[in-house]
């Protein structure tokens, strides 16, 4: 329970920042390949702190993303629920991978997310996206080790501080 109290605020702050980062303006050619920041953050917490990153939270955060910048209500919610489910499902294996191998698995997760995104776009009547669209999972894979180390550092430091306060 102590771990939950320590991690929960960090989880919310990280997700809010991830939602904000996705809104930052950049040139179009860069914007089409930027990684889904919320997906990276959710994948981290599903791996390392599954007691805060459940399917329900993934759904609610996905809805928030839909209201902020989605095309259809429920689109991001669906994608985030599937991403978190897959991460939780393979969590025991993924956690003990070395970080580069973990990045490979994150690439697979993000690619799957991108394919879903592509389907939803086509079904809702959008046009074919440019080929740079498919580079986004690669960028996400490259970003994964940094996201992982950053969030892990923050989480462990919080926990340590709490333990010191308790003793």
């Amino acid at each position, binding site marked *: 329970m102590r*771990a939950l109290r320590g991690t929960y605020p960090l989880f919310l702050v990280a997700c809010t920042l991830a*939602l*904000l980062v*996705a*809104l*930052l*303006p*950049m040139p*179009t050619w860069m*914007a*089409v390949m930027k990684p889904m920041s919320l997906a990276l953050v959710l994948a981290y917490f*599903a791996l390392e*702190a*599954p*007691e*805060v*990153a*459940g*399917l*329900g*939270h*993934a*759904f609610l955060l*996905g809805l928030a993303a*839909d*209201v*902020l*910048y*989605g*095309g*259809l*209500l*429920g*689109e991001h*919610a*669906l994608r985030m*629920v*599937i991403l*978190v*489910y897959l991460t*939780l*499902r393979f*969590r025991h294996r993924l956690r003990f991978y070395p970080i580069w191998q973990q990045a490979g698995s994150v690439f697979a997760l993000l690619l799957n997310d991108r394919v879903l995104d592509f389907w*939803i*776009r086509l079904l*809702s*009547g*959008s*046009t*074919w*996206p440019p080929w740079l*669209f498919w580079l986004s999972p690669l960028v996400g894979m490259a970003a994964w080790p940094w996201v992982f180390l950053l969030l892990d550092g923050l989480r462990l430091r919080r926990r340590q501080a709490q333990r010191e306060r308790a003793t």
Partner: protein
Amino acid sequence: MMAPSSNPQAPLFAGGRPGTLKLVVLLALAIMLMLADRQRGFLIAVRERALILTAPVYWLAALPSATIDRLQLSFRDRNALADENRALRDALLITQTELYQRRSEGDAQARVLALVQATALDAAAGTLVRLVDLDLDPFRHRLLLDRGTEAGLARGDGLIDVLGVVGQISAVGPGGAFAILITDPNHALPIEVSRNGVKSIAYGTGDATRLALPNLPLNVDLQVGDRLLTTAVGGRFPAGIPVAEVTAVERPTDAAFAIAFARPLSALGRNRELLAVKPVLYVGPPLPAED
């Protein structure tokens, strides 16, 4: 840390072992939401209501680029500013001259109109709005504006910049509004060729440099370089605002229709200052005189 497998009855918002039932329920919920939204489009209504909460989020996300803009402005070279000032003054002079000419033409036209008892000329009145520099979705051609219901904006208002038509307002809430660009694949705009008055509809293609005019008759009088203007048909824009310039006309010999492509004249999302214009009230052929 909890042992995930020893706790099969996890509460709804906690993690642990992923519950297949929960997954199925949430997926069904998401799919139902998407279908309902596709049918009714209520994301627009949700966005309008949610703007009270989301406007600060957008403001926060736009803060870095707004700050950079302001810094760039304050560090700009004095000479560059003087040059810009001179160029603007020249442009203003030219525009003023044109305006005076137009006004005299307008007077003449008004006299003719009064003579035939046609509908009155609606002066284009508008609200100045600014763009919030955010990336809502690089594939959908959407914008966020800094004014909303409090400035009198409404769904369906047209958006124009100095060069031409930009798009339309699709959702308005307190303190903000969303707009759809004319290049969005879901947008269509009635247009008129300035050279000869041929009317057609310009569809967005998803490409920011291209509009498509499909289903034209094979013998349509349209040339590369023709300017396309808004018409009063559709009622969203005052007539005669520049929309696009024709870049290609294709008349395939094996098809029943010709198709043309045009390049939008306005700066679309790149111009920060936009004018929101109200829909023109009366649309259609002139009414018969009432006597």
